């Protein structure tokens, strides 16, 4: 028995031709986050702290679909969601419909630890975030030029996509499942 850690930055129809300028920043973030998690585990931080730490770092990276860089709804807004769970106790917390919370995963943990509930959403979750004093920013902070472009492409073909990992519209087959590109 020993420690172990695994992390992901999304799955989908990631083309083998993914341009290097889109691949390298994501690989570098994965490497940085893995190193961060390894160091925390070696320092005997509890796994719950480790997964929150790593996911916060991933949320802060605009190249991934979470936190800043989250993809957009059909009206161009951000609605982020997150959840966290501890194995031995099965304690858990979840949030959704967030538009201003910088690190949704930390708010999910606060739901777990500071409320008698498991899941808060939309206005209630935003109110709870302010009560807890977590860092919030204007909704525009979370929107990037790339996510605007992705929404424009998806709306052009009236399609719902799996986050940024989808290839550009012009790379897709016309016969692809409309739900996932």
């Amino acid at each position: 028995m020993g420690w172990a850690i695994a992390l992901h930055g999304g799955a989908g129809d990631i083309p083998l031709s993914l341009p290097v300028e889109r691949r390298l920043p994501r690989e570098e973030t994965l490497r940085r986050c893995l190193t961060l998690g390894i160091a925390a585990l070696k320092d005997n931080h509890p796994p719950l702290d480790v997964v929150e730490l790593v996911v916060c770092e991933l949320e802060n990276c605009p190249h991934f679909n979470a936190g800043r860089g989250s993809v957009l709804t059909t009206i161009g807004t951000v609605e982020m969601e997150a959840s966290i769970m501890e194995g031995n106790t099965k304690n858990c917390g979840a949030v959704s419909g967030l538009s201003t919370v910088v690190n949704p995963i930390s708010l999910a943990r606060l739901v777990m630890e500071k409320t008698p509930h498991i899941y808060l959403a939309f206005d209630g979750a935003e109110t709870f975030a302010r009560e807890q004093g977590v860092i919030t920013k204007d909704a525009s902070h979370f929107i990037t030029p790339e996510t605007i472009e992705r929404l424009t492409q998806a709306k052009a073909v009236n399609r719902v996509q799996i986050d940024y990992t989808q290839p550009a519209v012009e790379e897709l087959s016309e016969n692809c499942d409309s739900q996932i590109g």
Partner: protein
Amino acid sequence: TVGCVAVDGNGNLAAATSTGGLVNKMVGRIGDTPIIGAGTYANSFCAVSATGKGEAIVRATTGRDVAALMEYKGLSLKDATDYVVENAPKGTTGLVAVSANGEVAMPFNTTGMFRACAKEDGTSEIAIWSSVQNVDEL
């Protein structure tokens, strides 16, 4: 979607997942990430974080199914995660998971999944596609 699972040397497990959802999703849409037992799950056997098409992951109760196969059927982490991902609709599901005894699994049935892992024995991996040419050593 991003996520992380971890286990310490004493077998304590945790899972976390965060996402913006789908491009061009309807306002008010809820995906698999915040649904305990779907996109995120942890018990004393394993911790799971999933990514992909949320609607499919919710229908499959992906995270809980992995744990249940280990708890009630005695499957290894690899067998349990392979079974769940292989039986999910193709192109919809990926996950990362760790077990209480330090195993790691990162299967997916999509073209690729941005992923990384490390174990106390020194093994590590950073990859996107299945091909070994995309795997780096830390």
